[in-house]
């Protein structure tokens, strides 16, 4: 029971954080999809399977949070680069603010002296 709950909770938490991380990785720059995956995979505990990032990128693109451009590559075929849209930038700011509030709140609760 606890194991299932923990697995489900971890999945949901990681999913939300991964979505935030994808948008955060694109802040102020455009990145090749494969590079996004590699950057986020380097963060311990964030990415279980590298493939999970591609559906997130696809969904963000459909929702208008990111847009793609093709650019020539010296190493082979043209590569697809992702960058935030204006809507994506606004949402990222709100999500980072919300995340900071939650993180600060949790830290505050955890640091409160015991009664």
């Amino acid at each position: 029971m606890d194991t299932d709950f923990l697995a489900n909770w971890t999945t949901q938490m990681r999913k939300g954080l991964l979505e935030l991380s994808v948008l955060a990785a694109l802040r102020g720059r455009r990145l090749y999809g494969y590079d996004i995956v590699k950057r986020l995979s380097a963060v311990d505990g964030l990415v279980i399977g590298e493939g999970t990032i591609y559906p997130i990128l696809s969904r963000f693109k459909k929702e208008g949070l990111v847009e793609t451009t093709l650019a020539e590559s010296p190493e082979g075929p043209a590569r697809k680069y992702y960058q935030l849209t204006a809507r994506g930038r606004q949402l990222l700011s709100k999500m980072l603010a919300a995340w900071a509030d939650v993180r600060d709140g949790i830290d505050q609760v955890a640091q409160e002296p015991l009664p």
Partner: protein
Amino acid sequence: MTDVGTEFTPEAETRLGEYLRQVREVLAGLPDVNPDEIEADVREHVANELRAVPRPIGPDALAAVLARLGPPDQWAAGDRPDPLRRAGYLIRERVRGVGAAVGDRLRRAWDAISRGPEDWRLAYLTFGVFALGVVVLPIFPICLGVSYFLGRAGIAHAREKGIGLAARRWLLYPPVVIVSLKLFVGLVLAPPFVTTGVIIEQVDQRDRQERWELIYRSRADERVVLSRDFIASHPEATTSLDRTVAPFPGNREVQRVLATLFLGAGLVAFWGVVVGSLGGLFPGAVRAVFCPLCDRFRGKHGWWLAGSSLVGLVVWAGWAYDLAADAGLLS
């Protein structure tokens, strides 16, 4: 999309294909994602991961990359798949698979006809024309004739190049066999039976005429109808045919049936001599006309048929002489 398929060993390529199939299946139920785009991303990811690996890429190197990508069903964890969307995807995939298979066959057939070697081109053309005739029945005779000559050309071409027909025979043979079978029946089997029928019909007409005159004159009645019962009720009317078939056992009906069979046997033997002799003299013509039914026909086969038929004809002639003598036809 990065095409890396040709760089893999067959085993690795199969493994990658299976993985991508799982990816499509999992993503099919997810709203707001584009499965085709994600598949392209995954292919690109695999290509980037394996860029430095020596070619061809084996299953072990691929397995490590796929393990890092993770099982596709994990990608949808936490999302709520739409069953209708998923069912629609599965149906589309099935239809697409069938359509692709049919399209592939048609494309290969068209390639064979337009650019392929002559032997396959003729085979496909032959079957195509034949199939068109089967579908559009009013033009079947024309299509059969055209496909017959195309098929014969295809068979001749293969023989000329010394190559076996193999699977092409199923495309070339249908119209050729049908036409050859018709020719065989028409030229070899039918003549003695048709001739027997014609002779019997002629004899029967003359017999009716003779019998009518015999009975009419005795009754002076123009309304005489020569029904079977009427003839049976006038056994006194004996015609030339009755006297001819008299040596055969049984009543008048049985005698006529036996006489017909006897005449047919004689004509079959005679025709066997004729056909066998022609086959013995021109075996190549037999093989050509009745291709592929008589591909193994040789001159000796024709002579065997002619010889055995001649023996049968001699025996028949002797028997016929005896019957004629018994009937008093020789006196």
